[in-house]
């Protein structure tokens, strides 16, 4: 797994959309650095990172989204969705954001969630086994995060 995600938007009108999925289990450790810079006007970025963690795995995400002074009318969206499946995984996220241009928009969102017990129960009543249910829920999370 590449542990760096660099996005440089240097030309006016440039756009970049990235979705990255990180799956970790056992005692795996993943360190990811994300660096997104908007250096020109009318640039857009949409970065989504999905983390699915289980057991004693550890994920550290250090992210910076920066909109420079000259990046007029730019837009940055940065999302991290983390699903803690089982065991005692540890997730550390530092989603930094620096905005120097008042005509631009920036937003970031981080959600660390677990498998919804109600959804698990409902699927079980419809005849799905636990493994299949987990797979479906993970798939839906991945889809939702990409939207």
């Amino acid at each position, binding site marked *: 797994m590449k542990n760096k995600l660099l996005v440089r938007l240097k030309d006016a009108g440039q756009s970049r959309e990235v979705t990255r999925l990180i799956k970790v289990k056992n005692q795996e450790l993943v360190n990811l650095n994300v660096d997104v810079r908007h250096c020109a006007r009318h640039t857009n970025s949409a970065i989504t990172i999905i983390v699915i963690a289980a057991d004693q795995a550890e994920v550290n995400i250090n992210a910076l989204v920066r909109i420079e002074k000259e990046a007029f009318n730019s837009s940055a969206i940065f999302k991290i969705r983390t699903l803690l499946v089982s065991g005692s*995984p540890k997730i550390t996220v530092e989603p930094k954001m620096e905005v120097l*241009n008042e005509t631009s928009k920036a937003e970031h*969102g981080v959600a660390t969630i677990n498998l919804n017990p109600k959804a698990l129960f409902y699927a079980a009543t419809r005849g799905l086994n636990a493994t299949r249910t987990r797979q479906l829920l993970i798939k839906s999370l991945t889809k939702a995060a990409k939207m």
Partner: protein
Amino acid sequence: MNLKTSNIYTAPKGFSPQLIDTISKFKNEPAWVNDFRKRSLEVFFKKPLPSFGPDLSKINFDDLSYYVKPSPGEVKKWQDVDPNIGRIFEGLGIPKFEQEYLSGLKTQLESDIIYGSIQKELLDKGVIFCSMEEAVKKHSDLVKKYLGTVVPIADNKFSALNSAFFSGGSFVYVPNNIVVDKPLQTYFRINTVNTGQFERTLIIAEPGSKVHYIEGCTAPNFSSANLHAAVVEIVAHENSQVRYTTIQNWSRNVYNLVTKRAQVRRNASLTWTDANIGSGITMKYPASYLLEEGATASLLSLAIADKGQQIDSGGKMLHLAPNTHSNILSKSVSLNGGRASFRGLVNIDQQASKSSSKINCQALLIDNLSQTDTYPKLVNASFNSSLEHEAYVSRLSAEQMFYLMSRGLSEPEASSMLVLGFLEPILKDIPLEYSVELNRLMELVMADYYEK
């Protein structure tokens, strides 16, 4: 308003263990306090300046006076306050405010509390609201038990500095199951140039009790720096409810470097409301340690960063027990080249199962000279807990501005209305009298902005 006062004693600039002896002598305090101060000074010398946030390298610690005694001592009636000092607080409307809205009031000028009152019925119920000087003498056991346990001396350079030179501040003790209906308030004022104000506040809410504490801060503008390095320690015992509200409106020459922290025990709740409007540089991150099951904490943080201001504020929530819940709402406005930064930490520990935390940061960037940042750190080590964070930066909506101006409002009126609407979720949680003042202040700030 810059009314001059003459102080009884102003310590020579710079610090030394001898100065600590002088302070202890003035305050006639027990030996253990003097020892606590001297240990703290040693820690201060060893600790580095913070490696993050605004540049503090321009603070000249040798050019500050660490103890300024403005009056012979605390009095209990406004008539007994030195008229020169009384005029300052009357100008700020404090005595009227006390009569109408408060259960108790302290006013601090420079290093000392100069006036204090508390309603008799609260005294009868065993509530203690006094200066730290009085507390270390009259309630020594309580102070000794808690002082430095929530914010240790070595927490950071400025907590060590405060521990060495603390003077003034309040001690609040609310016994079991006592509800303090109206807020207790302390008003802080720095009126002398090149001084440091190091008040220390300690609040103990016993099981089942309820209290709301408000602090307000102002200072006139000087050309050289003043330093305000306070420490606030709160212990919210089982089932207690504590609210701590700060309205900080220091002048632009003040470095406001404050450490605030609370321990929240079983099923207790703590609410920080932290409004930062003034000061040149502010670094303040009220922290809540959710130590036992069912503890909850929330933080409402408001920052206005105008020209020359750098407001680095935020908060910390540490979930260390199951079923603990926290909430942070931060709103900031940057204009005229000001910089507002949110810095936060939420840590859900492995044993904090079924806990949750929500953080919401919203920033308004008014012009291209200003900057806004968010620096959150989110750690979740409990697989059945949830943690949510969202942040966005936006500007005043051109459509809304157009609409309001088409209805006859001027540009400053329309923009201040939109800014106030943006801040409304926090303003509605601030006591009404302050909320009205903040509304007025924002109108002035926006009018001033458009005049330039």
